[in-house]
């Protein structure tokens, strides 16, 4: 962990602890006020608890040019980013993809190339519909490991995180509290429910909160669509394609539209927000990740719309290539934040008891 970042986060937390004006904005401040001194692990936990809503920046009477130079959203973002680098397994990947949109774009291109190659080399093996481009077995052979390996990697990282912050065995109450908070994105509601200060300086707005939830729930619906389809395929011997009024399609289309809209909105918001209130070095990586997620959604929807046309094989390769890159990069991109955030919320629920 970087000693200078930790020291700066400690300095600022101590000022906040003497001030307390921001107590109601989010979970970070009550966590600060529970301590008198801040160990490195406390600061890592605070960093992962912070949702970068920025309310505490615009409300702070001590921001630069004041000599106290408070900028809690920024220092916590930098520390958070640094902690993800440290907890990642294998290590170097996170440093690369968290910070570089170009690297993410390259990964998507590689994913696309791989799918085109697979389609050429393996081909349909007698399948229909999408499987006429690439057989079902080939898809499984590629995507099962591409899904499971990153999960294993995340598992290692989260265990490292949990140990570092001194987490205890989870209880039902911890889980309810943490998921409840994430489900409503309580920490982007601003304490008063007016939202956060993101795209227009100190104006409170729900934009980021809504955009985030469109992305999150859109993604979960798409994920549900794939899961249901897998169950239908194996348990009920009902292979794709599915009709419009089927669970995979209903989930997939709704989720896809939400995801596409949410990611587009999120990019627009990030373009307007002040980059000096986050980790500026990670800005490109964040935008790259959101665009990749948007590409997954849009290519998926295009595939649905144009599935019967000659564009289908190309679109399928694009979609599967994007999905492949997305899966493989999950532990090393902004996608990982959701997992760390949940862990931090779980830990916070434990500390509050």
């Amino acid at each position: 962990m970087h000693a200078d970042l930790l020291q700066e986060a400690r300095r600022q937390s101590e000022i906040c602890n003497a001030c307390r004006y921001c107590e109601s904005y989010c979970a970070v401040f009550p966590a600060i006020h529970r301590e008198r001194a801040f160990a490195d692990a406390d600061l890592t936990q605070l960093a992962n608890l912070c949702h970068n809503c920025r309310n505490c920046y615009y409300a702070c009477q001590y921001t630069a040019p004041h000599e106290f130079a408070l900028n809690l959203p920024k220092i916590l973002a930098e520390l958070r980013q640094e902690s993800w680098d440290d907890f990642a397994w294998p290590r170097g990947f996170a440093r690369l993809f968290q910070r570089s949109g170009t690297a993410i774009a390259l990964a998507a291109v590689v994913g696309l190339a791989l799918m085109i190659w697979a389609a050429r080399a393996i081909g349909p093996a007698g399948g229909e519909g999408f499987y006429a481009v690439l057989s079902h077995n080939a898809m499984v052979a590629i995507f099962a490991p591409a899904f499971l390996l990153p999960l294993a990697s995340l598992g290692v990282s989260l265990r490292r995180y949990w140990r570092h912050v001194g987490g205890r065995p989870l209880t039902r109450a911890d889980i309810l509290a943490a998921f409840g908070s994430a489900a409503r994105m309580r920490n982007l509601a601003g304490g008063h429910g007016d939202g956060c200060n993101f795209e227009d300086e100190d104006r409170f707005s729900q934009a980021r909160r809504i955009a985030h939830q469109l992305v999150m729930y859109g993604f979960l619906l798409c994920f549900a669509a794939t899961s249901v389809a897998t169950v239908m395929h194996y348990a009920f011997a009902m292979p794709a394609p599915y009709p419009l009024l089927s669970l995979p399609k209903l989930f997939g289309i709704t989720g896809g539209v939400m995801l596409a809209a949410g990611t587009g909105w999120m990019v627009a918001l990030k373009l307007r927000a002040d980059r000096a209130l986050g980790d500026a070095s990670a800005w490109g990586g964040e935008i790259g990740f959101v665009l990749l997620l948007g590409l997954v959604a849009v290519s998926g929807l295009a595939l649905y719309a144009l599935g019967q046309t000659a564009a289908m094989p190309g679109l399928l390769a694009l979609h599967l290539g994007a999905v492949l890159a997305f899966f493989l990069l999950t532990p090393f991109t902004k996608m990982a934040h959701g997992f760390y955030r949940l862990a931090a919320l779980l830990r916070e629920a434990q500390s509050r008891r």
Partner: protein
Amino acid sequence: MSPLDRHPADHWDVAIIGGGNAGLCAAITAAEAGARVIVLETAPKPYRGGNSRHTRNFRCMHEGPLSVLVERYDEEEYLEDLLKVTGGRTDEGLARLAIRSSQACLPWMEAHGVRFQPSLSGTLSLARTNAFFMGGGKSLVNAYYRTAEGLGVEVCYEAGVTHLELEGGRITRVDVTQGGQSFSLTPRAVVVASGGFQADLDWLTRAWGPAAKNFLIRGTPYNRGVVLADLLAQGVESVGDPTQCHAVAIDGRAPKFDGGIVTRLDCVPFSIVVNRDAERFYDEGEDVWPKRYAIWGRLVAAQPDQVGHVIIDAKSLELFMPSVFPPIRGETLDELAGKMGLPADRLRATVAAFNAACGDTSAFHPTELDGVATTGIEPPKTNWARPIDTPPFYGYALRTGVTFTYLGLKVDARAQCCTASGPIENLWAAGETMAGSILGQGYLAGFGMTIGTVFGRIAGQEAAAHAR
């Protein structure tokens, strides 16, 4: 391009001088009444909002539960609390007006973007009487600027007013400098809301004496009393003791200006406080800290070099709110004395004498007057007197921190200013700059923002009505 360049001198109905709480309440009220309003603020945008940006709550009367306020706090109890701290130096009519109006202020503030929260941790004693701003005073100021701009109020930053021309019982001209350029405006009405003069250290030194050079100013460096001095020189009536300021004891390492709330130190009741010569000079345990916070500013100001030194031991370290800077630490009293620049032998002797005067400490209770007192020592310590004997030892330097000055413009119940020959036709004042009309001495937590909100709204209303 600045609004001052864009518009002719007589464009505005109402000019507001100072963009803190009082000025913004006046600006919003006047704009809602249909007036064309300009706010002239001498600070750059990041420092807008004067002392208001440092506040955390306002004191609000309420006949029953109101927003975050619990139970009830009625006019009589509020007034009684006020009279206790001002020692009767209060205009009861204006005080009652401020108190009575405060109840309607809260919903007004909410409607104009201010958000409240339950009392902050460590301030439970104020939960019934004071409504806390979520995010503190700067978030309140931000909300008011947004609301004002939404109503078409024009705001000029780095626009310092230097002179109001008083002619024939009315203000005929407002002189202002912005970016090295001078402008003269001729608004129909003027509201002065530019605070006290505490940031002008020369003035403060003239008023208080040479000790004031060593004072720290807790709030904005921009409240230098320029407009106040200008008006007083033209015979506008004043109120409040010109030699006095509200001062508290704060962390001696605080910045010269704008240290704000975090520089407060709550450890005095658990300590002994010594001066430069390592001698005690006052009963540290006289009362609970919030009630004694203010007198220590004066006590420290009266010591050599205007500095005090708080000494505690390991037993007491966690009994008070954390300080913004960590305490100075010594394994022995000698080491601590060395680090704090105190004569070690004298400090040892003072601590030994104090420790010997401590008696049975079994009744010690950090949050109540526990009667655990010294015997046979001058000055005594009448509560929380426990020996300073458990290393490591910790110390803080204390200095005098000035909150505001009492001298101000005298106003009536319509917030209107006057000269000896009667009211000034188009001049109103609100906030700190007229607070002396109500707060002759002392201070009641949260009353500054109440005065600013109540009289800011009145001034805005009156100024807009006059302009039409």
